[in-house]
């Protein structure tokens, strides 16, 4: 039998994905800086079911604290409660579970705010008027609604701006490509700007627009997306697309682990539940090769304030 030398903290990523790779880098930074070991586990599918199977298996191994992405905002709470019932501490990263929730902290992007920022920037690029194609990702995700609401709120503030069409339900890049292409084909004369608020549609839109703008006769279409896949950054460097929103995945990993470590050390949450906005940076051609530093600065800022703002010292 193996000796039990269980890492105190376990970090769970949904599945191999660029986002998880970046979060993981934050977790690794945490390990290096603190010397605390973290078990890093990645699942096979982006589903709550798969997460449950994997995390339940981890839970039996006796880790004391968990940093987990909530696969389904409501469903994850049952898992969190189960872990808490076994005396294990959980911090949610990446997305906010349904409230009320048994976890004390979420470290994530404030998605509605991010969507609003994106919409503001897009409208600014469009010169304050024109028609927008609004591309949402999943239809089975409550966050999609929040993003949509954010965008609509901003658009409502500009009389010259309207949403010409909303398309949605695309879990894969290929599906997103088909839909964005179809929308562009159907309304090429009307669309002035495109906003995408999910990873897959952003990748898809970047490739569709790169191809679209290759023909100089075609009309210039403004674009802002979210996340920073290599395809997207390359398209920004090329000038094929305008901008994207960089989230702070390393911060999600780093700060969630930092919190767990403090809690294990006896610090207690300042309030029952707190949302820690890990921040965003708008990436354009100007900062496409330096935005990572800006993101890191945000992380360091949050880390510095952590004890004072969110925690109470151990008794």
């Amino acid at each position, binding site marked *: *039998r*193996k000796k*039990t030398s269980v890492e105190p903290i376990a970090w769970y990523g949904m599945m*191999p994905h660029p986002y998880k790779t970046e979060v993981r880098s934050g977790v690794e930074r945490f390990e290096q800086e603190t010397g605390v070991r973290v*078990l*890093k*586990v*990645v*699942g*096979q*599918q982006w*589903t*709550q*079911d*798969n997460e*449950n*199977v*994997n995390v*339940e*298996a*981890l*839970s*039996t*191994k*006796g880790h004391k604290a968990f940093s987990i992405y909530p696969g*389904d*905002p*409501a*469903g994850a*709470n*049952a898992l969190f*409660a189960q872990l808490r019932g*076994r005396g294990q501490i959980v911090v949610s990263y990446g997305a906010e579970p*349904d409230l009320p929730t048994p976890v004390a902290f979420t470290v994530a992007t404030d998605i509605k705010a991010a969507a609003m920022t994106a919409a503001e920037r897009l409208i600014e690029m469009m010169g304050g008027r024109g028609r927008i194609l609004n591309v949402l990702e*999943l*239809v*089975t*995700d*409550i966050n*999609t*609604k929040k993003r949509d609401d954010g965008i609509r709120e901003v658009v409502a503030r500009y009389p010259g701006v309207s949403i010409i069409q909303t398309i949605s*339900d695309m879990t894969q890049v290929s599906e997103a490509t088909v839909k964005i292409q179809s929308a562009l084909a159907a309304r090429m004369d009307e669309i002035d700007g495109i906003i995408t608020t999910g990873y897959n549609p952003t990748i898809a839109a970047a490739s569709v627009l790169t191809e679209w703008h290759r023909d100089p006769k075609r009309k210039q279409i403004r674009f802002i997306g979210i996340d920073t896949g290599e395809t997207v950054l390359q398209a920004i460097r090329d000038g094929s697309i305008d901008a994207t929103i960089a989230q702070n995945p390393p911060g999600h990993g780093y700060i969630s682990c930092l919190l767990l470590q403090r809690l294990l050390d006896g610090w207690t949450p300042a309030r029952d539940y707190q949302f820690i906005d890990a921040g965003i940076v708008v990436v354009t051609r100007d900062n496409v090769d330096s935005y990572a530093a800006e993101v890191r600065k945000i992380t360091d800022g949050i880390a510095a304030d952590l004890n004072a703002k969110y925690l109470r010292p151990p008794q």
Partner: protein
Amino acid sequence: MPTSATKRPGIGGRTLGLIISTTLLFAVLSLLSQSFLSSYTMFVISRQMAFYVLIALSQAFCLVVGQMSLAVGAIGSLTTIVLGLGLETWNLPAGAAVVLALGVGVLAGLLNGLLITRLKIDSFIVTLSMMFIYMGLRSGISGGSPYKVPESFRAVGQGSLLGIPYVFLLVAVLLGLVGFMFRSTVFGRRLLATGGNAAAARLSGIETGRMVVWAHVLSGAFAALAAVLWASKLGSAAPETGDDWLIVSFAVAIIGGTGLNGGVISGLGIFMGSAIFMLIKHGLVEVKANPYYANSFLGLLILLAIVIDRVRQIYSDKQKGT
């Protein structure tokens, strides 16, 4: 061979191979890890297995009559939405909401079955279309947001009796009933006969069209049941319930020895199929398999389990041959 032929008390064919594989896997895991035999581990494993069994049964009912259903997950999803509406929006008592949700599952299955038999279109295309239709309805109705369920509703999915999850007990009983049905009731035998050879079944006075409809109704009912229990377990009615059932439903049913061409099913086999599937998944986390390659190990181990079965079969054929 699994159940199909009658009056055979022994455990035949694939099932035996699966029992061997499962036992091996179980033994390895108990040796590798101290926590494996803990009551919590057994609790979560057995509960998850129960869900796999339900989902597999939902597919197996269709397979048995020589059909298939791509809509099992979509029916589960639609059921979840109706459950959520009942519990949160319409504020029905839990019992009523559950009955309503199960009813919707049954209706969806009925609709599938009627379209297939009345229009004489093959089950693949009908259930594919219906899958899309139900999936659209669920996102349209729910807008993507999960529904809250009352605390009391969670008892069944989260509770246990002497450490055994209710869900598992329920499924064990159901599986026994299903096994009995296929072994010993006229209805069950008619389903099997329909899948075994529809022309022969018709010549025995069996209304095969009706059997096909029944199979889809049962499939819908089991998908709905899985969805309701899942909501109870999860503590919310989440629209994406069912999105990953399709492959699981086929995989567990077929690993468990259900014939892809109809006429063959084994309750015990499906149970063992779900055990294998779950133990492999759990085991990979347990042994800290490189998570990026986890799927590869899962695939290899499934293949291995079946190969063990083949080897056993070839060996036992040899025995009989001489």
